[in-house]
């Protein structure tokens, strides 16, 4: 797709006026007459047998309408769906244990919901939580991945007789042979710890049952309104058309909001129907630290076998993945880690094995990056260590191993998270590396700037890392495009929106084909009454899957416009030009109809039409890619580290990314900038710390550090566009890109700044505190 009038242009975001003036509807803005409020009693213990819950005093409290425990749910109590079944990999072991609406016999993580109180106000509901008496027999908690797998460990799910949630082995080639032939083998243990997604808007749900219309309406901060609708209909015994789920504006999704069904999503609609009154629950920040899913503890024991010239001969990686107390999202995260490790490199021999482990901690599901961080971190760090030992420049060792531009499609010979072979569709990795190195001024920094600063007693370092992001996976999305008699164009699609700029990018795609001003295109997302086929917003797939559906629907409408205009104007279809909000005959601008007039003519009130005619200028189209595509990029940064305080200042941050054809550069840049902010938090600030009893010790923003505007630099960016051959627009995803390589980059740059001190970084997050410890340890070892 070539740049056009709108395609590839930085059209200002159409949704921003609403957002900036406070007119955008968020779930908490929904206020309904007679609305009740829910609050949840959550377990203080991470692991224990639930002996009894006595809610009688809470039910007596004035203003309390109902209290529900697992016992009160009857047949409605059932574990949630397994969202992603395990892929067909030989020898795979998977123990499925999905979350429950309210704990019934056992508590498996701190913050697990035990009871729901419904009251006239949230205030009363919260007070009533205190009236509930819980008798719980504490069990030893498991939080350490290795200890969890030892015989005799306390079991999160007794039925499996083990805390092993999954075991998967994928390999290609002959790693043992590669190792035997290697000039050097570098082996390390890597640890990548857990953080919160920390969206500005916590989760929230409002449910309303209209008994006369027999219609359930649910406002939900979900990334997957259509599957939520379908699931609720099934659970509640309603027809799908009786349930309308609206995911209005959402203040950040980042993955945890694609998780379903959260207990609150199951319980609020059910209770609203039983009570006959609308019901609201808005998650508070502390609840969010327990009740919303998280990522990403993994421990990798990895080794890289290289030839003398730095060429990769093979990689072996064995890792543990923390899945938390339940594993509803299957193996998406660890399989992403397994696949993403290969990066943009030729790795002839690969042996990768992982064990997913149940622990007494909140549930792990994808959070922006979704396991890709770990793979990039392990591979990039191993390359750094190999480069150092072989005396090869860090950029050079990468250059020598990149998949060449003429090698596509490139088959990695293992299976990706979409169950399709991991085949990269297109890319130009050497060009991206070259561009990033040039932008950051790598050579000049290494040769003159760094030594000059070092002489002045300052420690500055540089990092350059590459990554691949598998994006744009199926199964499909759809869109409906309608030209209204006013000339306005409506677009409806099923994906929800959490700030990505869908209202603008989808409008651009449609405006491009229909020849209207972009602000004449109104996009509706995330309302099942408007469009009810689709899966959701995840895996950096909106612009690829929904974008191509919008494009396809717009093309169909364009064909209808041309056919109708040609008939009315008595011209050949090939002579009709669609532009400026009209269709006219080429060379005869006075022989024209506005699109609004054509829409009216396409929907006549009287008279006869040709048999087979469809009314209106409207079309629906779907797009499902054969498999995911491979976006890629290179991140580079310069940091300065104060070796006394371990303070790190990011001096410059460069991103060269390739997400195929860019629909809107500013939107893409914002995604990358936001991702980098997320990545910096993940690399240096954000870490959820659990004690041995499974108690989360920093469940507030006083103790859980988020990067601030002062910590996040403005990213200098360059776009490379290698179109994807897997979809007509040639787009690839970019939603997670910024967050993926940041940990690896941070480690390399900081280590470079501290070169000579003996500090080696094999773990992320590196809090300021932890970096200080590493510096102190290295000093001790040197002394």
């Amino acid at each position: 797709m070539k740049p056009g009038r709108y395609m590839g242009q930085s059209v200002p975001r159409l949704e921003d006026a609403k957002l900036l003036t406070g007119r955008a509807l968020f779930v908490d803005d929904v206020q309904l007459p007679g609305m009740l409020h829910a609050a949840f009693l959550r377990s203080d213990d991470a692991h224990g047998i639930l002996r009894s819950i006595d809610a009688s005093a809470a039910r007596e409290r004035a203003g309390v309408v109902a209290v529900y425990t697992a016992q009160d749910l009857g047949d409605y109590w059932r574990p949630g769906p397994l969202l992603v079944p395990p892929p067909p990999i030989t020898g795979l072991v998977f123990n499925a244990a999905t979350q429950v609406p309210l704990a019934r016999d056992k508590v498996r993580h701190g913050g697990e919901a035990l009871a729901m109180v419904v009251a006239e106000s949230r205030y009363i509901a919260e007070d009533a939580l205190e009236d509930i008496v819980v008798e719980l027999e504490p069990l030893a908690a498991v939080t350490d991945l290795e200890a969890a797998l030892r015989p005799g460990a306390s079991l999160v799910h007794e039925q499996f007789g083990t805390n092993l949630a999954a075991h998967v082995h994928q390999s290609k080639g002959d790693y043992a042979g590669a190792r035997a032939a290697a000039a050097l083998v570098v082996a390390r243990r890597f640890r990548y710890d857990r953080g919160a997604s920390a969206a500005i808007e916590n989760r929230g749900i409002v449910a309303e049952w209209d008994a006369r219309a027999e219609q359930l309406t649910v406002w939900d901060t979900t990334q997957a309104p259509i599957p939520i609708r379908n699931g609720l209909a099934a659970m509640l015994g309603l027809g799908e058309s009786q349930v309308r789920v609206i995911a209005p504006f959402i203040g950040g999704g980042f993955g945890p909001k694609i998780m379903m069904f959260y207990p609150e999503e199951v319980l609020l609609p059910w209770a609203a129907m039983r009570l006959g009154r609308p019901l609201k629950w808005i998650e508070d920040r502390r609840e969010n630290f327990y009740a919303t899913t998280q990522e990403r503890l993994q421990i990798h024991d990895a080794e890289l076998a290289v030839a003398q010239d730095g060429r990769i001969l093979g990689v072996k990686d064995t890792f543990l993945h923390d899945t938390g107390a339940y594993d509803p999202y299957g193996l998406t995260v660890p399989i992403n880690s397994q696949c993403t490790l290969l990066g943009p490199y030729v790795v002839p021999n690969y042996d990768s094995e992982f064990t997913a482990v149940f622990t007494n901690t909140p549930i792990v599901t994808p959070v922006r990056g979704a396991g890709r961080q770990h793979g990039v971190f392990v591979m990039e760090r191993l390359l750094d260590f190999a480069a150092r030992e072989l005396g090869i420049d860090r950029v050079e060792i990468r250059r020598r191993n990149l998949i060449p531009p003429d090698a596509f499609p490139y088959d990695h010979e293992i299976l990706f998270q979409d169950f399709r072979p991991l085949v990269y569709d297109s890319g130009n990795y050497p060009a991206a590396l070259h561009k990033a190195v040039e932008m950051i001024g790598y050579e000049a920094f290494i040769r003159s700037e760094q030594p000059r600063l070092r002489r002045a007693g300052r420690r500055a370092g540089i990092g350059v890392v590459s990554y691949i992001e598998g994006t744009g996976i199926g199964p499909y999305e759809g869109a409906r495009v309608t030209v209204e008699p006013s000339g306005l164009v409506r677009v409806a699609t099923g994906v929800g929106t959490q700030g990505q700029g869908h209202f603008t990018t989808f409008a651009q795609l449609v405006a491009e084909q229909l020849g209207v001003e972009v602000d004449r295109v109104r996009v509706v997302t995330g309302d099942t009454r408007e469009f009810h086929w689709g899966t959701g917003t995840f895996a950096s797939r909106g612009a690829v899957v929904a974008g191509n559906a919008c494009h396809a629907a717009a093309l169909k409408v364009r064909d209808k416009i041309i056919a109708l205009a040609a008939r009315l104007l008595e011209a050949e279809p090939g002579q009709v030009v669609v532009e400026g909000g009209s269709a006219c005959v080429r060379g005869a601008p006075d022989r024209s109809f506005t699109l609004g007039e054509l829409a009216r003519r396409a929907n006549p009130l009287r008279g006869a039409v040709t048999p087979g005619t469809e009314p209106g200028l409207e079309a629906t189209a779907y797009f499902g890619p054969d498999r995911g595509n491979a976006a890629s990029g290179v991140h580079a940064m310069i940091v300065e580290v104060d070796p006394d305080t371990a303070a790190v200042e990011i001096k410059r941050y460069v991103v060269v990314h390739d997400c195929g054809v860019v629909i809107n550069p500013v939107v893409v840049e914002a995604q990358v900038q936001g991702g980098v902010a997320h990545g910096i938090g993940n690399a240096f600030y954000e870490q959820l710390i659990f004690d041995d009893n499974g108690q989360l010790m920093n469940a507030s923003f006083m103790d859980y550090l988020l990067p601030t505007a002062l910590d996040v630099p403005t990213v200098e960016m360059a776009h490379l566009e290698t179109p994807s051959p897997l979809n007509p627009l040639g787009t690839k995803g970019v939603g997670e890109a910024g967050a993926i390589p940041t940990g690896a980059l941070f480690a390399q740059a900081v280590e470079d700044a501290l070169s000579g001190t003996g500090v080696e970084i094999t773990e992320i997050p590196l809090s300021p505190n932890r970096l200080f410890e590493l510096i102190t340890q290295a000093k001790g070892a040197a002394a």
Partner: protein
Amino acid sequence: MIVEGTYTFPGPREVVFRLLLDPDVLAKTMPGATSIARVNEDRYEGKMGVGIGPITAAEFDVVITMTEKVVPESYQMQIDGRGRFGFTRGKASVRLTADGESTVMHYEADMMVGGKIAAVGQRLLDSVSRMMLKQGLEAMSAELDRRLGKEPA
């Protein structure tokens, strides 16, 4: 959380031992204690209010069970505190040794803290518990002085 240390009371061991087990003294001297009752020989029940960082008035129902009591030398305590803001539970042991006119108390406790107080009060848990312990022991020492004034050794 492990709390351990020693404290010297200016009085004889028998008096100190009695003092430490006297519910009225405990109620008076334990910071935040609003009531403490001895429901039987070895079981105390009470209420305590604690302020930790952003949690300003966490009220706990506390049950203390004494075991392995050797008058006037030592005892063990099983402590179980629960409240809206979380829980604390664990074991403590107290040993008294005579040191001339004084008594040295050796204490050691291994407490688990959970729920909101652990989640948002973590940074302050150590210092708050140390401070409460210090206040409690000093108040107890003052009470001992008063008693000894009434009943000289």
